[in-house]
């Protein structure tokens, strides 16, 4: 009986460790003009319980971070936190992400950093798919990328210690595809093949914007 109980306890621990849901936040902030500005925002957010992958880009005004689902905040609460730092939130978005632990033991730490996230990427055809996936997998830390032309969703698996959603979206935008938070340069978009020229004015799917 004692053995059965021990096995049950071990299985419970493993089960709990195998799946931990998180919420990935991204926000665009106006008014940050110096390192002290990003430092203020960084200080405000870095002490949130369970926060990981905190990233602030001064030039684009992009803020991104991940919180455990049970410690997550509403969009309005995040906007309020940004306002209290003295800057203006343009928008805040949240999407659920899943952190999966695939194995116990030696590889656990490495796998614990793998994150699977779906993001919206505009495109049309098979050429777009190749281009988007190739650009994504070129980002150091990305393990897997799969873009669906029907849903316009890119499912990306990456190591959150080596890269971030902001870096991935920037890379995709740099090859000509607009994402949820990054717009491709006009010069790159204009050089895309005719069949790849997606509708830039098209809105994102419901719930994404």
């Amino acid at each position, binding site marked *: 009986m004692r053995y059965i109980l021990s096995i049950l306890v071990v299985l419970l621990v493993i089960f709990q460790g195998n799946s931990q849901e998180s919420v990935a936040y991204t926000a665009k902030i106006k008014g940050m003009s110096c390192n002290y500005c990003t430092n*203020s925002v960084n200080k405000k957010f870095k002490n949130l319980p369970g926060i990981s992958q905190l990233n602030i880009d001064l030039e684009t005004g992009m803020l991104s971070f991940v919180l455990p689902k049970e410690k997550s905040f509403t969009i309005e609460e995040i906007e309020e936190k940004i306002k209290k730092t003295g800057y203006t939130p343009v928008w805040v978005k949240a999407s659920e992400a899943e952190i999966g632990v695939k194995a116990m033991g030696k590889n656990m730490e490495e796998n614990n950093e793998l994150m699977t996230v779906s993001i919206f990427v505009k495109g049309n055809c098979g050429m777009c798919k190749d281009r988007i996936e190739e650009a994504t997998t070129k980002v150091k830390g990305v393990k897997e990328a799969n873009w669906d032309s029907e849903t316009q969703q890119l499912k990306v698996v990456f190591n959150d210690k080596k890269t971030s959603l902001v870096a991935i979206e920037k890379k995709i935008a740099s090859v000509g595809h607009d994402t949820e938070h990054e717009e491709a340069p006009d010069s790159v978009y204009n050089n895309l093949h005719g069949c790849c020229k997606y509708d830039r004015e098209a809105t994102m799917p419901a719930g994404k914007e």
Partner: protein
Amino acid sequence: MKNLIWIVFLMSSLGATAQGPPILVEKPIMLGQNRSELRLFYRNETRPNSKKYQSTNLFYDIVGNQFWSIGVAGSYYMNSYINTYDLANDKVEPYDGFGDMSINLKYQFLRKDYVGKTYRMLGKIKQTFPTGDYKNDPYLGNNEYETAVSIVGGYESLKYGILHELGYNYSPTKEGRYLKFDLGFGLPLLKSKIPIRQINLYFEYQSKYHPYDEGPTYFDNFEAYYTQSIQFAVGVFTFEATYLWPLYRVHDGHFSKKEMFQIGSRMIL
């Protein structure tokens, strides 16, 4: 001077981004909720009539949020003396003591934010208390309760910052009343990154006009200074060095300057 302009031009063409807080001109950007700033610096200055001052100065923004802040400022003078060597081959004994203290209240009333740039304006009231020693010459204080009101504005982008302050200082004595106008230009030399490692140059202009002084012309009541500063920022700390030159100084008020050197640091808490 020509070399300096070339150095600045070359450095600014290196793709500089983002600067730190200005040195002598007031900054228009508030620190945000639950943040404060502590600033400590040493100043060595020569004032008219061969008066030499060395002081340790403290600025502390005690409390505030994204709209307002309250701060205090104080100074302690060391080895202040009148250098009469040239006149009488003699030198009076230097002495130490506290200077005047002041309280600052700032309220930001305009904020125009854009991605990577912002323009902000704030109103500022500064109340000075006569805590400085006025019995011995050289005086360490002004011996009056003075009130200064000013409007501070600033445009800051990733490439440069322009700051200005226009204000009026009221004193019970006519000699202490003046209009002031300051202008600052900040230029970062390194690309911004986290953790912060930044070098900034500051070019600042400060001027005062004393309308009640009895000079025969407008210019006799006017004083203007240029300060050149370099600032090194690491994380929440900045280290600064400043040198001041008088541009125009006929007015010989107690706080007029013949030259000034300042080094200091500040910390964002």
